[in-house]
């Protein structure tokens, strides 16, 4: 059953319009979350548990006393990879599925705007990712505790930034899904993710090419593409290097602004889209 169709009737004529809007978005978000849970998205947690437990047994024998470092690296990478797969593959289907199944047409006549619907979908998937990440984080800490490691709050900084990265990636996936097919949305979102990680190279390109035009293009691209490197402190926290709170603050601000930009653009495109 689709996300909105089974949500409770949305009250019209709310006393405070803003609160009503938030409530509508909240209903869609909650239903989107329930839908992903029903779709067994959280089954990846079983895979995560098996991967971590299996590695903890194997690595002790073959890593030359580096098993704790590798467990941390592997745990953080698995949190990121599982989240990324969910963000892209579920994110691109959030809108497309409603259109393909024609359930969206049952929603549109109801007193909920397309923007509210889209934002609800976005926050619903973010909620799924949050629950997912929290469970995996607890799993990683439990494993480290069982391996007699002291509690390391620094890992939470890396996981928090991973969450921001995923929230941004969901926004990218949703943007593409508002105007193209699921397959192309997935491809584009994947491309933006990779390009966003390599965007520092675009900036550096101006120092290695002699062309006057190309550096300007790459500089524009550098600022336009989401810079996913801002959220990658996994290596630093595992090595025990300090990650400043200010770095977290600026990365959060960057994510908030960029996500807002993508969601505004997504809502605008979705409003304009001819769904007949």
């Amino acid at each position: 059953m689709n996300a909105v169709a089974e949500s409770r009737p949305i009250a019209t004529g709310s006393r405070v319009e803003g609160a009503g809007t938030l409530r509508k978005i909240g209903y869609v978000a909650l239903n989107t979350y329930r839908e992903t849970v029903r779709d067994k998205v959280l089954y990846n947690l079983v895979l995560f548990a098996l991967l971590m437990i299996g590695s903890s047994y194997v690595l002790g024998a073959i890593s030359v006393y580096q098993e704790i470092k590798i467990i941390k690296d592997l745990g953080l990478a698995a949190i990121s990879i599982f989240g990324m797969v969910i963000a892209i593959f579920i994110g691109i289907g959030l809108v497309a599925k409603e259109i393909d199944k024609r359930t969206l047409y049952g929603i549109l006549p109801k007193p909920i705007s397309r923007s509210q619907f889209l934002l609800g979908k976005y926050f619903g998937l973010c909620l799924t990712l949050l629950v997912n990440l929290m469970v995996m984080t607890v799993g990683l800490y439990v494993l480290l505790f069982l391996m007699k490691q002291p509690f390391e709050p620094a890992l939470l900084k890396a996981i928090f930034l991973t969450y921001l990265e995923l929230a941004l990636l969901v926004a990218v996936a949703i943007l593409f899904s508002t105007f193209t097919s699921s397959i192309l949305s997935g491809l584009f979102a994947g491309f933006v993710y990779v390009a966003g990680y390599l965007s520092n190279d675009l900036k550096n390109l101006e120092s290695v090419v002699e062309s006057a035009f190309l550096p300007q293009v790459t500089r524009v691209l550098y600022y336009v593409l989401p810079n996913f490197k801002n959220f990658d402190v996994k290596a630093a926290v595992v090595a025990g290097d300090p990650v400043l709170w200010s770095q977290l603050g600026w990365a959060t601000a960057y994510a908030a602004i960029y996500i807002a930009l993508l969601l505004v653009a997504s809502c605008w495109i979705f409003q304009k889209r001819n769904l007949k």
Partner: protein
Amino acid sequence: MKPGFAIGALVLAVVAVQSHIDESFGEYRSTEEILYIDNPRFLKKLLVGFENVAADLYWLRTVQYFGGKRREAANKNFDLLDPLLQITVTLDPKFKIAYTYGATFLSEPFPQGAGAPSKGIALIDDGIRQHPGHWRFFLDKGFIYYWYLRDYKKAAEVFLEGSRIEGAPYWMRTTAGRAFAQGGDRQTARGLWQIIHDTAETPQQVDNAAIHLRQLDALDQLDALRQVAALFEKRTGRYPKSWAELVSGGFLRTAPVDPTGALYVLDPAKRDVGLSPESKLGRLPAH
């Protein structure tokens, strides 16, 4: 037939067929030693955001490769060791233990290691560039100069350079002085290995240093045994034929064993004493 039974039977059949293929054709399917991507920087670009976990995988492969090669009896080479280490530390420049261990793997004389101390020094130099405040790398580098290259002056310079780093232990400076003044001296070597032993970051480093300390003990014991044999020859006019002869003559209390418990070998033909082939000490250093 029930599906569960069918699945179980088919899994067993797959295992049986695979085992048969391995037994029958294993020698024709030996794993080719190859690095599909040997450019570490290119590889780093490919692994967007997951360089660390890839570095771990390359580290595991390095350790497996080194351990496997060490056990090989014939046609041994360590050709892939340096590229594997380069990839590991390029993917994760913070992987300090990879520099330390890698430099040792590369510097150990063939056939225990790659016998390429210059590559070991290059790797440690890379580590020093990445972590200029990590005094331990200077200890590792100086040690390679001292132990593997026998360049005591250069070793002393490196120890001295490391001693100037904030937080470096006081003995770095005295070690530099000893390396410079008494390079090649067994006591200095023993002191160095004791430092490696006491500052080890992993049990394996402790074990490795302990073995080398035992080797130095064995060298001292061999010197003493040669003197005993010489004394026997001086008194009897001939070289001893066995330890039993030395024990019955009152020159030794019991047949001598090395620090790992293996009996020393007395070779009247060569007029020398040495380690037993069963000894776990390996090849003794020249110090």
